[in-house]
């Protein structure tokens, strides 16, 4: 029963997407959005039902193959479903956000020529994402992994006539491919060790793998498992945009705003985090892999947050905040507090989607104006948007009581109590990160909504309902979702059937009784105060004395430049690596192929033969006495040969 339902969850958006894609153009907008929205709604309802059921009857959890994809000798690769708490909750999150975005897009994409294309893409994306989270084996994981990548490729480049857009989506795909390569290699390594791609088999053989070695050279070797985990995490770095593979995410803002909300904030980018949680049985076995994860995560959390401070594109600011939040989640995974990271993933999904959609509604209201320097004082004009984005911001910085507060605090607790290598470093990173987060978030809020209202924004008003509704719908969970869920999800054994992690005591050194108590306990920690101080500084900088930031920028010019240039990563990738490889290809082609092989060897031989033939035909002078001479020489050579032979024999 449940199995059929889950298959339905998977298939319905696919069908919706296909219908929209093929018939959308002819049948018109209403058909398109109805079919897609209803399909997504259906899968949302079903997945909520599934979640509900397995919460009540945990024995219904199942891991079943749909069909055998490939069978070679003893190896078999399957397509299958693994439905447990982790999957179910992810399904709910994904489908809910996707539903919101669908509804939102009705308004946002209203007069876009590619309307039906857009809807079919996002439905297909939903399908891909679902197949990623519902996978019960690496093959399907990889399939979903790449499929979401492709959908994001198509959606970033949705406005394909914009040079910047197609540049961004190309970049995004290639960088994701780098991650995917690592993921594939990790999968291959696991396969070569365990002989299967099914989660269950691989995980069960984890301990056995653990003490195997992978020989880099005859005498130099590493633990195969650690290598595998790091390779897998390499994949996560690509998808979840961790340093140094993060550069694609800010550029991906070239896509329509709903996409930024759906793919580049809520769902796809969290695939990496989800994968880490999924692979917890393996990661838990390798201390060093965990600390690698931890270090990468904390670096990302802090550095990308700083970048958010100097951006003027409303969406880019949020994008950088997404990056840093992803860093938080990875950090949590690094200290093996997977539940916390997943919890943060969930809350973040809600409030970040909210923030993006709010930004989107601002953009729509201002007729696709994205530069915050041209905004200001919009709170009177856009009350709903203002409130909702305020809620989102508060949730983001982890203001007490908001969902973000619980998740972030639990996460930081975990880091504090961690004993993994480099946990102190991580701890300071996340603490500073909290400050930075609130600073840039409120900078954005203040600049956009407070201050003087520029006159050309005078007649701005709230966009239509389909845009505003999702904001309201999303702000509800952004505030409250954590209250009931934090206990079971983070501290209790909600994920115990899908994730291997230490007990909450070991993790947080704190006995959870109820959310309120957790709140009060959290207030004893530094986090909240750091966050509030961040707000204060932001108030000072952007309301009281708006000139300070510029002063700072001038005083710390090099640092400012470094931030503006995003640590020169783009420069490195585009102007050095890309250039290098294309020029390498060029020279290989010109020198290797054309000059050497073709001209020198192939045509060279031809020329040689031709010249030989020209030399040889000089024999045919046309003079009879030459011919006669040739004949005579021929004869005399023979005779001479005979005689010499004879002499040779004689002597």
């Amino acid at each position, binding site marked *: 029963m449940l199995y059929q339902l889950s298959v339905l969850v998977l298939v319905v958006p696919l069908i919706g997407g296909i219908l929209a894609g093929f018939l959308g153009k002819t049948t018109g907008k209403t058909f398109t959005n109805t079919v897609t929205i209803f399909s997504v709604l259906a899968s949302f309802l079903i997945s909520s039902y599934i979640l509900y059921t397995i919460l009540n009857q945990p024995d219904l959890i199942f891991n079943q193959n749909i069909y055998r994809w490939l069978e070679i000798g003893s190896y078999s690769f399957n397509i299958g479903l693994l439905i447990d708490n982790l999957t179910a909750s992810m399904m709910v999150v994904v489908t809910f956000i996707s539903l919101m975005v669908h509804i939102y897009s009705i308004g946002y994409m209203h007069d876009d020529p590619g309307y039906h294309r857009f809807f079919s893409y996002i439905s297909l994306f939903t399908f891909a994402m679902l197949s990623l989270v519902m996978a019960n084996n690496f093959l399907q994981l990889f399939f979903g992994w790449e499929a979401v990548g492709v959908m994001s490729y198509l959606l970033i480049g949705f406005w394909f006539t914009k040079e910047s857009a197609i540049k961004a989506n190309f970049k995004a*795909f290639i960088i994701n491919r780098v991650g995917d390569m690592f993921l594939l290699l990790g999968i*291959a390594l696991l396969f070569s060790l365990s002989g299967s791609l099914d989660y269950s088999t691989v995980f069960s053989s984890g301990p056995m793998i653990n003490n195997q070695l992978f020989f880099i050279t005859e005498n130099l070797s590493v633990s195969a498992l650690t290598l595998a985990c790091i390779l897998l995490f390499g994949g996560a770095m690509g998808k979840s945009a961790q340093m140094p593979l993060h550069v694609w995410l800010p550029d991906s803002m070239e896509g329509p705003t709903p996409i930024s909300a759906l793919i580049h904030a809520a769902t796809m980018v969290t695939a990496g985090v989800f994968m880490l949680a999924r692979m917890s049985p393996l990661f838990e076995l390798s201390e060093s892999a965990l600390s690698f994860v931890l270090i990468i995560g904390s670096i990302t959390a802090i550095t990308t947050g700083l970048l958010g401070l100097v951006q003027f594109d409303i969406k880019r600011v949020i994008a950088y905040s997404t990056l840093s939040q992803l860093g938080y989640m990875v950090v949590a995974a690094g200290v093996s507090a997977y539940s916390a990271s997943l919890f943060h993933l969930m809350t973040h999904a809600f409030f970040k989607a909210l923030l993006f959609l709010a930004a989107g509604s601002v953009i729509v209201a201002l007729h696709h104006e994205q530069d915050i320097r041209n905004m200001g004082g919009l709170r009177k004009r856009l009350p709903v948007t203002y409130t909702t984005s305020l809620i989102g911001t508060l949730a983001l910085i982890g203001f007490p009581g908001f969902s973000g507060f619980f998740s972030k605090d639990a996460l930081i607790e975990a880091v504090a109590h961690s004993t993994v290598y480099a946990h102190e470093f991580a701890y300071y990173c996340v603490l500073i990160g909290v400050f930075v987060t609130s600073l840039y978030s409120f900078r954005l809020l203040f600049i956009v909504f407070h201050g003087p209202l520029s006159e050309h924004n005078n007649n701005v008003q709230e966009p239509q309902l389909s845009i505003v509704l999702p904001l309201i719908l999303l702000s509800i969970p952004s505030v409250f979702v954590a209250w009931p869920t934090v206990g079971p999800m983070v501290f209790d054994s909600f994920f115990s059937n899908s994730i291997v992690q230490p007990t909450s005591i070991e993790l947080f050194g704190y006995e959870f009784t109820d959310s309120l108590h957790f709140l009060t306990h959290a207030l004893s920690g530094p986090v909240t105060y750091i966050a509030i101080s961040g707000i204060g500084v932001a108030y000072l900088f952007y309301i009281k004395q708006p000139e300070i930031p510029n002063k700072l920028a001038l005083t710390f010019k090099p640092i400012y430049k470094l931030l503006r240039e995003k640590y020169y990563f783009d420069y490195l990738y585009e102007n050095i690596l890309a250039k290098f490889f294309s020029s390498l290809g060029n020279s290989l082609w010109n020198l290797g192929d054309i000059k050497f092989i073709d001209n020198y060897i192939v045509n060279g031989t031809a020329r040689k033969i031709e010249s030989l033939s020209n030399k040889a035909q000089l024999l045919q002078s046309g003079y009879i006495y030459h011919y006669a001479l040739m004949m005579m020489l021929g004869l005399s050579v023979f005779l001479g040969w005979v005689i010499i032979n004879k002499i040779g024999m004689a002597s």
Partner: protein
Amino acid sequence: MIVDQIIWLPILTALIIVALGEKRSELSYKISLFISILVFGLSVYVLYLFDPTTSGFQFVLKTQWIERFNINYHLGIDGISLPLILLTTFLTPIVIYTAKTTSKNKLHQYLASFLLLEGLMVGVFSAMDAFLFYVFWEAMLIPMFLIIGVWGGKNRIYATVKFFLYTFLGSVFMLIAIIYLYLKSGSYLITDFYYLPLQVNQQIVIFMAFLFAFAVKIPMWPVHTWLPDAHVEAPTGGSVILAAVLLKMGGYGLLRFSLPISPEGSMTLAPLMITLSLIAIIYIGLVAIAQTDMKKLIAYSSISHMGFVTLGCFVFFIEGNALNPATINLAINGAMIQMISHGLISAALFLSIGVMYDRLHTREINDYGGIVTTMPKFATLMVFFALANAALPGTSGFVGELTVILAAFKANGFIASLSALTLIIGAAYTLWMIKRVIFGPVKNEKINQLNDMNKLESISLGLLALSILILGVWPKPLIDLMNESINLLTLFITGT
């Protein structure tokens, strides 16, 4: 019997069409289309009759041919040849169908050449007698030579002569090897060669002799340079058949001759072969990035993809110190799938380029841009094919590369990692082309005038897209077809 018909029906039709002459090319178009579809039907019927649970040859047909040298007209089909035959008979109708997109002079000869090619290619894949194999193998050069030379581009003569001499030079060494094996075994039956007791150094020599022929066809670096020229100059149909089927003959030869006849030889030379494959995958991939001509780009990508075939054929030799049948199975199956899927994908890509070329008469990437705004349907398919070429999961392109990489990793992590670079490089050159050709602002007025695919084009491209998708979503049936035969091959390789 039926195999016989699959071979000779197209060839006889070709003769008839030539006899019909230029006046009745309309009629000959109809005839050849009908026949080629009929032949495809026949081969599907073979598929239906084919028994995948047995490893040996089926539909065997044997009659005396040249008594003096104990040569027989000896045909048979096994799991390795059947998929390739299906590929051939599937693509030929498409090529013939799309022959009408542009007006050609001497259309009848064009069609005849393709029918001739089809028959000969099926002959190559179904010959059980080495001599017969060689006859088909060489005879193929003639129609291809004409196709490139008569209906090709500006520089066609250079290209086609280069193609001919390159391949001819390669295959004569194979002839010597075949004769040598005959003198040893007293028969030209390929399967008799498998049982010959050969010293390792003899095996190496024989392997090299065969390699000359197959490496040129596949083509492997450094004997690949005929391919880009041939592709660029060939008419669309020519490129399609060239990339989709002719290249596969090389891989087929490796599986049919080199590996089972000289296992120790292959074992000894495996490092060389693997190196060449990796060079093909990486070096050629990088070269592909540098291309400005779409056909050249796809040609180089073909070489790079065929690198996976050769890798799959040899990588298992370096696993540990003992051969592991499981890995051999995995790798060779991977190589086979890679061949089939590359056949479909490259065919599709060349057809798509043909679609654009017929409209704008240029293959330069820089002359294009923003195709999608005027040809949305076509652009969708083109992007799909491009992604398939970049080995996107869910398309057939992924299956082969996945299996080969898995097998490679079992053998050696570094070779696997190097070959996995194709994920990046392949995506880079394919999507780089897509970015500049399909997307972006409309480049010039001509592109504004373009009209989307007509019925011919959409049907043929659609068929290809469908088959690529199906193979990608559910490759199991294909594997089940080959599994037994490949098991047998594995036995020969392991020498048990």
